[in-house]
């Protein structure tokens, strides 16, 4: 009986092994082959990537963009999550639902909505002109700024949720204890609330920063020619240039960046969990 039940777990594992693990291994093999058609193992794709300043610059830009998105998301999310967990009462559920709803709207629809909102002559442009803040065109679409705005919009709700869940677990009696022992509100926040909510903050950073590294839709659509990042370079290798082996190598560099940031962040997270 027990043996039979164990078999029930196999279909999922087989699907993942065949359609996720195996393809990744094959991609790794491709990344060590040359695009020029000569057979044999070569490091040329990787050396090409790491020796050309173009690609290093793009890597740098991808990381900086993702960091910017993460920091702005944190600035929006932490206070919001804090207010939801500690200040709102009846409002809390409504705000939570409103934060969750965009999860269920299509990613491309959201990108498209920013495209028409930010475009020169678009609604934001007309609005800012009519209140006299700017003259002429807005000029924000097709810049890195537009990409960052679009990505913050896509990812910050995840962070609100992880931080909210961590703050919710912070026992209110701890706050009362801290203030009855004479600590100011500010001190209570920095010495009690913030450290206790750090696991949620770290998870939130992970859930925003890591997917940002691999985006290509938002940079392409909202950044235009100025939006090139690692993700769009990889896309081009497959759809425009047909340098599949080089594309596979860049994808693995991206994969490595993802793994490094995840292990780093989860190590930091664990340190807070143990406290």
């Amino acid at each position, binding site marked *: 009986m027990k043996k039979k039940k164990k078999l029930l777990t196999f279909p999922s594992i087989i699907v993942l092994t065949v359609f996720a693990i195996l393809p*990744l291994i094959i991609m790794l093999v491709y990344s060590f082959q040359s695009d020029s058609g000569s057979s044999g193992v070569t490091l040329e794709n990787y050396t090409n990537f790491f020796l050309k300043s173009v690609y290093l610059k793009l890597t740098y830009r991808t990381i900086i963009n993702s960091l910017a998105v993460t920091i702005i998301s944190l600035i929006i999310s932490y206070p919001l999550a804090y207010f939801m967990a500690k200040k709102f009462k009846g409002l809390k559920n409504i705000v939570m639902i409103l934060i969750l709803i965009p999860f269920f709207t299509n990613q491309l629809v959201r990108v498209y909505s920013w495209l*028409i909102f930010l475009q020169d002559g678009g609604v934001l442009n007309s609005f800012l002109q009519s209140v006299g803040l700017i003259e002429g065109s807005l000029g924000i679409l097709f810049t890195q700024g537009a990409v960052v705005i679009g990505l913050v919009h896509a990812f910050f709700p995840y962070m609100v949720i992880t931080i909210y869940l961590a703050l919710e677990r912070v026992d209110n009696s701890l706050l009362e204890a801290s203030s009855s022992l004479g600590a100011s509100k500010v001190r209570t926040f920095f010495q009690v609330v913030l450290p206790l909510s750090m696991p949620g903050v770290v998870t939130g950073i992970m859930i925003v920063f890591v997917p940002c590294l691999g*985006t290509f839709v938002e940079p392409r659509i909202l950044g235009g020619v100025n939006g090139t990042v690692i993700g769009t370079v990889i896309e081009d290798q497959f759809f425009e240039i047909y340098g599949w082996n080089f*594309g596979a190598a860049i994808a693995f560099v991206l994969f490595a960046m993802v793994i490094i940031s995840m292990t780093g962040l989860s190590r930091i997270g664990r340190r807070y969990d143990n406290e």
Partner: protein
Amino acid sequence: MRKYFTDQLIPTVYALMALAFLYTPIIVLMVMGFNESRYNTLPFSFSLEWYSALAKNEVLINAAINSFVLALITALICVVLATMFVLGMKTLSRSMEGLFRSLIMMPMSIPWLILALSMLLFIRFLDLDKNMFFVVAGHVVISLPYAMLSLQARIQALDPALEEMSASLGASALSTFRRITVPALAPAIVAGGFLAFMISFDNFAISYFLIPAGTSTLPIEIQSSIKFGFTPEINAISTVIIGVSLLCLAIVGLIMGSSIENMIGGKKK
């Protein structure tokens, strides 16, 4: 007075600002779908032109049907796989369970771009043409973790004593499964299926890389319209998608509110 400021006014204003950021572009998109302007610009004059154009746009409608069918198949497969997995999970050793679970959750943390590319190379490695089988496989791989999250939360809350009791009262394994386990898991199965459906319906990256030429899904159509020139028909179809998603969300939320809450950890203790 000061307490009113710090406890009420500032938090409310802050939340409203965050929500305004979240919703303004989406609302503008919806409103502009009812505007005569071809370029999504003001001034506003009401028109249903883009909706009637959409009704005649077979490319967009076919793409929407494709997305729907693909998401439905994906959701069904994910629900079956996830249900089987959580039922068998308890018999695994601790380390095996951990390993299997992290394998299934892995696609949540790897950029889908990478998964899509690796599958594309896999198809080339097998010397096959792009086909719908691999599109479905890719969608299952990325949607399965979400179905699994929902079911895991539920089965952990399920009291094993119920099944034992049923067995000790003489019910056969099959009837215990049918009468106890399935009804207990039903809300999580529906919620998990819904999540998997949404993930698949929304997905662009996997479909974009794997779909055979001549077929398309809604996200792919939206992307290519953005690339090659679009009209507010895109606003109209977006509004329809958002409306339908919200309706489904409301229905699922009403039926199984508590299990969704469990899933995001709201009531975990």
